């Protein structure tokens, strides 16, 4: 009998031993938090992951084109009348409501990017394998990107929840994160992020920098722009000045405006920051549907293999803004002629009767024959120019004018006018600078925010501009877009809607 119990006992004991640690099975072929933490490359890879996020359509694709260009007086919805009428059509007519999916896309897209940035910051903080210089540079890059993401968010929605660390689902349910921080609070975060970036990033071409990574120049330019929105003229001026004078890296205007947005102009001497598509090795390394959604579209008699969906073509109001002889018009607007239009790469768009719209965005045009093309229409490799020297000149001009330095302002504006084939100006008004801004940066995803900013300085500007465009801008409402209704629901109603939506 004893023997029996001994054997039974032995079997059970062996099973118990087996169970010790036996259930600790690591995920196969997947990197979990623990594995990530022990890999010295993780922090760096997480930073790359944030840059990658910029290709996501929700950040810079169709919804972004909608709120920056189509909603503004620079562009029309375009395409066929019914296509995307509930989303882009509403934006074009400024009749959007909180259920328009564009806003939820932008909201979730930017918060996804911000979450990646927060994750990377946490990982960098705890990383022991990086040398101090690399670590601070990478931290600078992340702060730059997060600042830029919040800058877009605050301009689209006004104050938004301030998320500056990785949240657990339980934390996310707290009021602190469920409710909106004020726009001022968000700007504070943006400024501190960009200040950090400015202090820690290498200048273009300096050790540690690389084409595509955020640089000291990019941080200075972006912060200058933020200061313009905060009406801190002194700081805006000095930051812009540091860029123009080469203190934060070598920048100069290119001679041919038309090439800026082509592949040939990628990362040119004028570029402070742009979204890279590189060699597009994997054929999907580009902002989702960016070029395709804005490409010329067949209509009427059709009969040609078209290049896209035809959204966001330049408006008549924009065309009217150009002075005669301004070379920038032809570089910005594809005008569909009655008998066909030959583009810079010799592609011929047929006559107007076979095309859906009158005008298309030339800056978004991608040449299938003379630029990299591997067949993926939805991810055509087009670098998005987020910030370039011309804009810094205009920031410099506006800040200078506000500080009473009219001479510097005129010099900045003249530099751009001369390149555009126009005569320089001995002196400029604020309106001259704003006009120059509109034509220089047309279709570059800035106009809607810019109009709202100008309207803050000169009330009535937005209403007048939109009335020329045939639309109604409602003061006290249209300065920001509605908070997505879906997100208000998720917050159990704690997120407050913007006024009059």
């Amino acid at each position, binding site marked *: 009998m004893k023997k029996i119990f001994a054997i039974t006992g032995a079997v059970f004991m062996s099973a118990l031993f087996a169970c010790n640690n036996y259930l600790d099975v690591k995920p196969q072929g997947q990197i979990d938090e623990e594995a990530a933490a022990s890999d010295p490359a993780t922090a760096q890879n997480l930073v790359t992951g944030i840059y990658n*996020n910029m290709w996501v359509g929700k950040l810079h694709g169709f919804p972004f084109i909608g709120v920056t260009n189509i909603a503004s007086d620079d562009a029309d919805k375009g395409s066929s009348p019914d296509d995307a009428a509930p989303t882009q059509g509403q934006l074009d007519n400024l009749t959007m409501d909180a259920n328009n999916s564009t806003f939820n896309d932008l909201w979730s897209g930017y918060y996804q990017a911000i979450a990646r940035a927060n994750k990377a910051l946490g990982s960098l903080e705890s990383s022991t394998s990086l040398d101090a210089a690399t670590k601070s540079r990478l931290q600078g890059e992340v702060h730059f990107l997060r600042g830029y993401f919040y800058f877009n968010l605050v301009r689209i929605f006004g104050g938004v929840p301030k998320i500056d660390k990785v949240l657990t689902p339980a934390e996310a349910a707290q009021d602190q994160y469920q409710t909106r921080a004020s726009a001022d609070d968000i700007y504070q975060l943006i400024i501190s992020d960009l200040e950090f970036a400015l202090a820690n990033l290498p200048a273009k071409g300096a050790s540690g920098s690389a084409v595509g990574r955020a640089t000291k120049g990019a941080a200075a330019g972006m912060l200058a722009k933020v200061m313009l929105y905060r009406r801190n003229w002194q700081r805006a001026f000095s930051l812009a000045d540091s860029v123009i004078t080469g203190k934060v890296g070598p920048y100069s205007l290119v001679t041919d405006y038309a090439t800026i947005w082509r592949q040939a102009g990628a990362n040119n001497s004028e570029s402070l920051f742009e979204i890279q598509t590189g060699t597009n090795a994997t054929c999907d390394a580009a902002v989702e549907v960016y070029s395709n959604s804005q490409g010329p579209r067949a209509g009427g008699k059709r009969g040609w293999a078209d290049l896209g969906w035809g959204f966001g073509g330049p408006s008549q109001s924009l065309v009217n803004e150009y002075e005669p002889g301004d070379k920038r018009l032809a570089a910005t607007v594809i005008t569909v002629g009655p008998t066909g239009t030959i583009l810079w790469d010799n592609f011929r768009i047929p006559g107007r009767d076979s095309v859906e719209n009158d005008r298309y965005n030339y800056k978004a045009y991608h040449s299938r024959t003379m630029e990299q093309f591997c067949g993926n229409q939805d991810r055509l490799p087009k670098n998005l120019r987020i910030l370039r020297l011309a804009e810094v000149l205009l920031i410099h001009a506006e800040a200078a004018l506000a500080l009473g330095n009219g001479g510097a302002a005129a010099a900045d504006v003249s530099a751009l006018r001369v390149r555009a084939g126009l005569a320089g100006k001995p002196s400029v008004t604020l309106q001259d600078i704003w006009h120059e801004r509109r034509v220089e940066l047309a279709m570059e995803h800035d106009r809607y925010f810019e109009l709202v900013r100008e309207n803050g300085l000169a009330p009535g500007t937005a209403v007048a501009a939109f009335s020329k465009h045939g639309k109604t801008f409602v003061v006290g409402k249209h300065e920001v877009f509605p908070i997505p209704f879906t997100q208000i629901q998720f917050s159990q109603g704690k997120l407050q809607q913007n006024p009059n939506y």
Partner: protein
Amino acid sequence: MSITVTKIRGAWLAGMMLVIFAANALAQQTDPVKGTVKDSATGEALIGVTVRIQGTSAGTTTGPDGSFTVRLPGESGTIVVSYLGYVSQSRVVNAGQSGVNIQLAKDQNQLGGVVVVGYGTQRKRDVTGAIASVKGEDLARQPVLTATQAMQGKVAGVQIINSGQPNTQPQVRVRGTGSVMGGANPLYVVDGVLTDDIRNINNADIVSMDVLKDASAAIYGVRAANGVVIITTRKGKAGKMEIRYDGQAGFREAAHLVKMADRNQYIDYLRDAAPSKDPNTDAAAYGGSTNWYDALLRKAFQMNHNVSVSGGSDKYTYYYSAGYIEDNGIVRTNDFRRFTFRANNDLNISEKWKLTSQLSYSRGSGQNVSLFDIYGNIYRAAPVVPVQEGGRYGNTSAWGNVANPMLQVDKRNYLQQDSRLQGNIALEYNPAKWLKLRSAFNADLRWGYDRVYNYQFLNDDKTFLVAGGNQRQDNSKLQINDSRQQGWVWDNTATFDHSFGKHHLTVLAGSVTEGFYSTFLLGSRINVPAQKDLWYLDLGDPNVQSTLYNRGDKYARQSFVGRASYSYDDRYLLSASIRADGSSKFKERWGYFPTVGIGWVMTQEGFMKDQQLFDFLKFRASWGQLGNDNIPTNAYINTATVNLPYFFDNSITQGIALQDTKDNNLKWETTTQFDVGFEFSLLDERLSGELDYYNKKTSDALIVVNIPSILGDPDNTYITNAASFKNTGFEVSLNWKDDISKDFSYNVGGNISFNKNEVTNLAGGQALLGGGVGQQSYITRTDNGQPVASFYVLESLGVYQSQDEINSDPNIKNDPNKGNIRPGDLRYKDFNGDGIINASDRQFVGSYQPKYFYGFNLGLKYKSFDFSADFYGSGGNKIYNGKKAYRFENTDNIEADYENNRWKPDRPSATDPRLITSNLPASTYFVESGNFLRCNNLTIGYNLPEQTLKRMGLTRFRVYLTAQNLFTLMRFTGFSPELPGGTIDYDNSINNRVNTATNSTNNTSGILDAGIELNAYPITRTFGFGVNVSF
């Protein structure tokens, strides 16, 4: 373990030696012993009783008069007389003795025999749970691949939904659908191996299939919530060697096809649907008059051969079998072959030690076709386009229609192979009569190989009769998937079994350790040469569109089981079990799954002694908790998204993101089940049956919950344990059997099950949408208070007959779309009363889950003939005619019946609209009755008479004719009322393997989209001829 392995090896050798000894033992000769065997109660001679000489494999069986003759190896010995359903007897006899009269008594304890209950067996009469048992011979009789198909209609409470495709398993629902995201199919236990796939098991090898329907399944703990099906394979019986051959051959055809519009009907429809299309003006190109079903479908050959050798002695028994199935699909080129081999051995090393093994190997191989595409395109292909002429194909896509399905079939070669080695080796030790210790090692090794080759062809006039269209494959493409799975389970159990006076106690305790690992390597390249011998990835273009995936999965479990069964006087029964499951799949490692059951055998009571009605009557009740951990391994761990590229200095750098928000406390779903039932037999055991009521509540069910975007999760959802479901039901099964005379006996059986399924609480989770049908979007909705996957559509109120009706219809008084509505269009009910018809007017209109399903069967034996018929049906459910609703183009073909009935200005119709276009919303117009009754199997057999057999030296020779799915009565106008859902190639598609490996938790296939006939594989009808021989 190393000790066990050595012992096993030694035992194998010993086993082989014993076979040789046993054969030698037959050689000696003595005077024969003669006698008869009779029923102790009736005095009738018993035929076919086994009479075996103890200690040898020698023996015989009784003849038609109950007589037998055996020769002892020595001067005296013991004969053992055994017969199914009777208590065995042994008798000491001397050589030359005659007139040995043996009277066998019926085994009163063996009502329905023995059932397998998990880590042991129990007498059916002692069981306190709802366990149904199906005998192997009832399964093997039908010409089907898997045993579950053959089980359809035979077990109350078990719904089997078949598809007609070769090499697929049916969907099985034991007592309703208890999960939407965790998988709803039962666990299979094949000789101790836990699996979800039994396509490797030869039906002829199965001795019994036991279904644990209620909480008694809790012995399998965290995997038992959907029920457990235990499959036991045959073993040899001590006695004379038996050689059996069972063969069957026949053909399959589509059981029912929908009649499509012919050329003229189609042209008539086009005049309204696509006025710009006129095939007559293009007669040269489109002069066809095609029935695409005739062109693509065929009568498919099918056959099944099994050979087995079994026998043994007191020391050693063996069962070897080999099986071959060839099962061709009814779509051209679709075929499947499976070879199986089995070796089951039992070796008594000594009185106390026993070694057993059950091993099987199977290899399946077949040509798959993309049935989802092919069936969709056959249904839609325009009848005006010819299939093929002089080697060139009709160009359906140039006509503005779907791809030519014949060309699709011809330009794709999809080889699938699956090899599987499965089995166990167990060592048993009986230190005392009342104690058994058993250690079993079970393994399941699997290798898969899929090879898809798409031939290159262009839309030019070399391929097509007319150039153009978009059906083309610019580059040839080869895709290869090599996969491997290995699972093992080590069971250690101790079973205590003892009687003390009227008390009987059985106690089981054990531990179960389990491991699983799988991996695959999937690659593809383009421009691989077209010769079959060159189909290797090396020969493809390494630079363009070259893909390579390699993923894996691994998990482990450690469990402890305990069960105690107590009975007093065979009258009061009590049993309880608990299983503790530790799983690597969750952060919360341990789950505990208890069950308790009681039974009361009323016929054992004094007050029942005098009644004549019942021979046996038992009341039983059980309660218990079961788990469902059918959840991907890493569903609770945050893992990185890798290979997120970006360009720095124009060169590519791969980034990562840790961005998924997951419920780190995700765990198994829990089902609490309560069951009460009666088991009875009466009228001298001619009528027997069972009644059951159950109540099954699933809590902590997985559900998708939306989360705020501030968490940064890419799809703003996460999966958590929040929802609950309820299934309540009632089951009845009755069997009647009677022997009218020596020549004529019959049996009739039937069962019916009623089930009510309801989502009781989504607890903040989102209503789950499923069953996408083209532009109609999702058809089913799983929401509070409704059955899982209820159809959620507009209510159609018939057809507008005139413009006046449209103008005055209050349902559309504010509808901005009103101007587009014309007479002949469908009218819908404005459910929310806003005068606009849109998605918010959708309503719940029933689901595919049947309110009841039933099966009945009939068996007759008259002299040498036997006849059997099986029927199956279900009712109270709905089907969505998705294929009719899903229009790709207006040029898609239509059903002849619709064309004959649709509304036309000169031929008004109250039921069918003038056109079915892609923008017709989902509505009750497409919802049809799911009721059906089918004759599953009809078999007529003829047995050679005893005398003839003797002369030929055979023990059995039977020939038979069989028909599977002979006819179906249904109101549904489609192909088949059996719509398991899921992508049709679900179980074995490459994509599924990729999805599984990416740990998507949307394990909803077949749950949320069952009952939608989108491109269903028509159920097939089989006619076959077969033969059973043994000697």
